[in-house]
């Protein structure tokens, strides 16, 4: 058995660590690139969203490398995603790959369920080994996310644009190579201090833009032309709630104190959207309402034809709380120059709004 799985951001790093520790035979398909997208688009039904097309491309590339067992998220009551594994399996079979799909439930999965699935995949390795490997994978995941948070803060203020991203790439590699907790800890501390020492422009007060929307396009930079880095280049600080380590923490582990940020978000959405509409639609509406005061603007990312986000977009336009929102729909037809033009125009608008606010304030104090 050789295991393969689709990409989503840096998710392959913790999984790689897990597979190595449990000596599971695995392949990591090439990170998302133009070929992945073309393969996915070619073999997908036309009306499907970019997450389907990219993950299908990944799975085909994994099968080309000899994977015969594929891990794909699934479940019920989420959105279309729940039955992607089924359709993708059919497509792969029709292409002539004899593969078995394993669905990892993302809606009703518990910690025990996840561990059981790993145990089955690893051919009955003792529990103690599984738990320790799982813990190590989670540690890598949270190290990645901690560094990314710092990167998000450095990007808009760095003197030489691109420094933070270069360091981030190196850090990802170092985390990938770390083999024990000590090295991992050292890598994390080391890179965070390096990032903090990057020469910064202390004069600027960056605009703050919240990034909200659908899970996959938020976490997979390839699908959105790395919108966060582009905003960084324009001197905008990005805030994003969704980090994989946070998500696993809340969805896998029991929440002892009952404190969950999503509850707050759902509450904020209540006056406009009373119920879950699958996917991340409810959260998108809630985040817009909740962060109106804190942020200068919001960028709403969604795949083209995403059902929950269309509902959210329609509702978001009509809320009492007003904040500039730019919805960017991601699909294979999107071109980078087009997106950059829209981003620049949006940032200009936010700057002008801030200037106007400052002028008003000065007038009031004078």
């Amino acid at each position: 058995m050789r295991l393969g799985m689709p990409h989503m951001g840096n998710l392959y790093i913790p999984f790689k660590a897990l597979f190595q520790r449990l000596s599971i035979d695995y392949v990591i398909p090439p990170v998302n690139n133009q070929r992945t997208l073309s393969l996915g688009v070619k073999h997908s039904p036309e009306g499907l969203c970019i997450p389907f097309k990219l993950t299908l491309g990944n799975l085909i590339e994994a099968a080309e490398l000899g994977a015969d067992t594929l891990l794909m998220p699934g479940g019920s009551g989420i959105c279309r995603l729940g039955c992607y594994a089924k359709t993708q399996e059919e497509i792969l079979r029709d292409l002539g790959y004899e593969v078995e799909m394993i669905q990892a439930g993302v809606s009703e999965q518990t910690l025990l369920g996840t561990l059981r699935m790993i145990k089955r995949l690893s051919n009955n390795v003792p529990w103690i080994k599984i738990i320790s490997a799982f813990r190590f994978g989670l540690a890598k995941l949270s190290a990645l996310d901690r560094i990314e948070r710092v990167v998000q803060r450095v990007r808009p203020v760095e003197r030489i644009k691109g420094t933070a991203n270069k360091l981030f790439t190196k850090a990802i590699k170092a985390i990938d190579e770390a083999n024990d907790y000590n090295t991992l800890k050292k890598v994390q501390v080391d890179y965070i201090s390096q990032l903090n020492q990057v020469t910064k422009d202390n004069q600027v007060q960056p605009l703050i833009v919240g990034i909200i929307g659908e899970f996959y396009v938020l976490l997979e930079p390839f699908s959105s032309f790395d919108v966060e880095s582009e905003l960084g280049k324009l001197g905008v600080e990005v805030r994003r709630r969704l980090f994989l380590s946070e998500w696993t923490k809340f969805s896998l582990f029991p929440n002892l104190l009952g404190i969950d940020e999503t509850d707050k978000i759902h509450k904020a959405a209540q006056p406009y959207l009373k119920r879950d509409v699958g996917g991340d639609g409810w959260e998108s509406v809630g985040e817009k309402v909740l962060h109106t005061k804190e942020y200068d603007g919001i960028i709403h990312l969604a795949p083209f034809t995403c059902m929950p986000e269309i509902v959210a977009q329609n509702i978001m336009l009509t809320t009492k709380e007003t904040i500039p929102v730019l919805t960017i729909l991601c699909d294979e037809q999107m071109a980078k120059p087009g997106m950059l033009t829209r981003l620049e125009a949006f940032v200009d608008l936010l700057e002008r709004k801030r200037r106007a606010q400052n002028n008003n304030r000065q007038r009031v104090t004078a």
Partner: protein
Amino acid sequence: MIRVGIPRALLYYQYYPMWKTFFEELGSQVVISPSTTQAMLSQGSSRVVADTCLPVKVFLGHVLSLVEKCDYIFIPAIRSVKRRVYNCSKFLGLPDMTKAVIPESPPILDIDIDINKGKRDLYQSIYQLGRHFTWNPFKVRQASIAAWQAHLDYQKLMSSHGLTPPQAIERMSGTLEATPKTHSSHSTSTRGAIALIGHPYLLYDEHINHRLIHRLEQAGYKVLTPEMLTAKGLETAIVRLAGSSYWTYEEEVVGAGGYYLGSGADGVIGIMTFGCGPDSLMMDMVRRQAARLRATPFMSLTLEEHTAEAGVVTRLEAFLDMIQSKKRRRAEVCV
């Protein structure tokens, strides 16, 4: 008397007799929007972002036509009618979305239907809905029993008499002549049988589908629809094609598609709208099955508000020509 408005779109075709009975039993008057027109569609489209799907735009057009004609508008949020099988996001968010984009609409009666939460929750939702009309839980109970009976009668009328939903609704409200012309008794239907698969709100809205059923009948074909099949037949077809259902209303597409591809039809036409999430997957399943079987011709028509009538007619004619030539070839082989 309280007037309750029901838009003639989306779930109307599945549940109208049930809803109507329920509200009338509770002593209110049911107001229904007229058939879809181009004006309604344009008005509906103007309220939402462009990516919103055609059926929702039509639905909003119907809601707009009911404004000021009723005191309440009934828009349920149907999350699930079967265990662990869920509905499309658009249905879940329908009441909230309508409220957001049509602020001038009368108060919306929304009710959450989610079988997964258990019977108690369902009864509570129904009572909550009834509370708008009466305080008496027994009256609500009576109304819901009558409504359920009406729903069963409606379904039986369709599956045993071969009626389409609009015909069955007319029959139930008594506006149709005593001897209705059902599809089976259609005298001109000699050239073969074509199965139409898709959601009722696409098949029976003549404005959306450019009078497809009428055109097929004119061309001399008998039209078969998902409602004419029994629940069991649909279920087995789903199991064969998809294993288990994932979507509420999967029967109308995968179930009916799987059934008619296997038997009873000379050709199958799948009708879906552009950007429909569930249909993009379900129609693909049917198409894949058709390609594997290579027995019954299959055509999928994707509709949107820019679909031109001429385009639909051309594709339809080509499809029917193909079926006829296939029949001729087969006849020649037999001779």
